[in-house]
């Protein structure tokens, strides 16, 4: 058993250090997925944790100012004020009515400070179930693809 002991020790060292690497500082890498309502219910945690919150960009709410962009996210009638302070320019798909995901932290002032915004054009990539996507207008009114829902598609 002596020689297997050496192997066991080496393996334990390797696996142990990998476990350590994987768990140490994991909290800094975590992003919580929240709805606006849930974000409100988080209390103090919302200001310390990195959160991803989603919703639709409220019409006419986008205000571009020097250094940042303000807009409102709306989901189920809950409205969240967002200030985007990231470095990268906002994507082209970011506009009134678009579905957006904002990554960041909630400030004490109730404004969500986002460092990253992802947006997708709502009509095209995620039609509501049972509705034909825009751009796929059948000749006859009310036509529905019998497969139902075609959503954000891509090759593998």
């Amino acid at each position, binding site marked *: 058993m002596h020689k297997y002991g050496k192997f066991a020790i080496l393996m334990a060292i*390797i696996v142990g250090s990998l476990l350590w690497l994987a768990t140490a500082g994991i909290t800094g890498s975590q992003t919580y997925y929240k709805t606006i309502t849930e974000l409100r219910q988080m209390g103090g945690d919302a200001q310390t944790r990195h959160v991803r919150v989603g919703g639709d960009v409220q019409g006419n709410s986008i205000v571009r100012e020097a250094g940042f962009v303000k807009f409102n996210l709306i989901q189920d009638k809950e409205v969240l004020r967002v200030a985007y302070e990231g470095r990268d320019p906002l994507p082209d798909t970011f506009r009134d009515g678009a579905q957006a995901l904002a990554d960041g932290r909630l400030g004490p002032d109730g404004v969500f400070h986002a460092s990253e915004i992802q947006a997708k054009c709502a009509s095209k990539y995620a039609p509501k179930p049972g509705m034909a996507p825009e751009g796929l207008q059948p000749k006859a009114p009310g036509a529905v693809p019998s497969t139902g829902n075609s959503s954000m*598609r891509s090759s593998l």
Partner: protein
Amino acid sequence: MENVGALALLLAFCISLYAIIASVAGRLKQKPFLVLSGERAVLAVWLLVSTAAGILIYSLLTGDMRMAYVASHTNNAMPLFYKFAAWWGGQEGSLLFWSWILSTYGAVVVLKNRGQHRIMMPWVLAILSSVQIFFLTLNAFVVSPFQVLAVDKVITSVPDGMGLNPLLQYWAMVIHPPMLYLGYVGFAVPFAFAMASLISKAPGDSWIHTTRRWTIVTWLFQGTGIMLGSAWAYHVLGWGGYWMWDPVENASLLPWLAATAFLHSVMMQEKKGMMKVWNMVLIASTFFLCIYGTFLTRSGIISSVHAFAESPIGKYFVTFLAIGIAATVWLILDRLDYLRSESELESVVSRESSFLFNNLVLLASCFAVLWGTMFPVLSEKFSSEKISLDAVWFNRPMVPIGLFLLFLTGVGPLFAWRRTSLESLRKNFQWPGVGMLVLVVALYAGGMRYPYSIISLGLCFFVTATIVMEFFRGSRAISEKTKVGLFPAMVELTHRNTRRYGGYLVHMGIVLMFIGWSGHPFNQTAIGEVDKGDTMRVGAYTLKVADLTNGETADYQWDTAILEVSKNGKSIGTLEPTRKFYKVAQQGTADVALRTRLNEDLYINYAARTGDKATLQAYVFPLVSWIWIGVLVLIGGTFVCLVPSKVARSYPRTEVVGVSNQSHRRAASVVRPEQ
């Protein structure tokens, strides 16, 4: 037409079922004709699935807008090339593509193994057909590609379809999915052979010899597919990254890691008769990770930039995985006796041990990636909070794992079997080791402060030196003996043992990729809003906005920034980053301006325009080209591995078992997938 396609799929389903029954019954009742009819059934399935695929392709190419799949994945203006590629552009079509590749592989296996493996083959076909049945179930009953658009039960068509996402209209993106699929599906064959050899208790390692080339080719497809996706991200997405640990990227990486472990550990079984259980576990893991990856991209359980629609097929995949894994585990446990190891580990400093650690670390990395990918699902299950992990987390264990593997790449092949003497360690590693230390000290003295990059570059030197020494020693011996030049001697050397020297070339490709990755901490970024006529700087480069132009074509509007670029004050020409906005898709894409050199890439994305102001994202990426060069070397090395060795290797151990070497070699060269 679409009815014929749907019918073909239905028939293929029935005949696959027949193939299983006929093969198994024919084997158990010793009825050769029944076995033969099972083989014919597999060929018939190929014919039927090809018919269905042909009909779908015909509809795509002719733009039959009555069909839901055609309408939602093509439009009339699309080039024929992309219309064809729409076959695998969406959920339903890509599943049909899966089935078609699998049926093709099945047919190839049948045709290549006529008259051999008579005991094993019925089981191989039964297993392949079971997998086929699963995918045909999805194709025929759950997500049929032949759905038509209907209003009040009247079939209708739309004037034009939705087209393909403009981001995907790029050459690498067209061949990236089929490459990955060829990989994903291909692992079904070695898996089927492995299980068949367990079921039939076939003597020796004939399943490994038979499927060695198959596994290597599949592994190559998978790796190439992954790197094509990576190259696409770098060249098209405009953020300059090539890997972001996105769930779908991870899904393609997982089986590749497991397969890499498998390719290494089979050598232990071939040469020493060890790790037999382990190899079974590895090939089964590879196969199920392939299924899992297909599942991950389609079920919508994990949000990803790539994901297909959320769909009801998730539960089918879970069922299939559960049954498959349970059956495999039971089979392996039941046959443990048959898988007993023939020798033992002797020393920590030995080839065996380096294989062992290579496997351990590859599997650990596989597990880490799987864990990170599934974290949102797991955390939601156990703490009711959906939490995702970012790229920083993935890099934390994966970078050291990568460096350790790089180290093993250097030392492993030079350790002797059983145990390595101090003398041989000194001979093989003295100069590479000293050189590495000198380089590390020099890099540190030169002001480099990123430990991982320093270690990585040091190891790259070390591994390169050991590989070059191996080639040099071998070819010098040949050139002295036969009085030919060093280069012809090197070709001769490689030809004599293609597995070994091809393997070194593959390792060299990996080293070059590591050189590319080492440049990552030195990336430089500048983002600026620049007026026409003004300049911005990134690294040693100065960019002057000479002009901003725009225009329009039938498909898209475009904006181009014409930049005069100078490096250290010296003009080096103009670059023209462009942004396009596709009208139908209502989506913007970037045509990044790229100046590629071996030492660094200058990468400029024209992000936005407001009046006469251009928003530019400019990056300098040191050493990135080496990643793509490494991929090419890796592909070349793999091809060398596939060339039969001039001097036949013999495995004296396997003779004892009772199967002659001759038949092994023939078997190995017979199963060769079509390329």
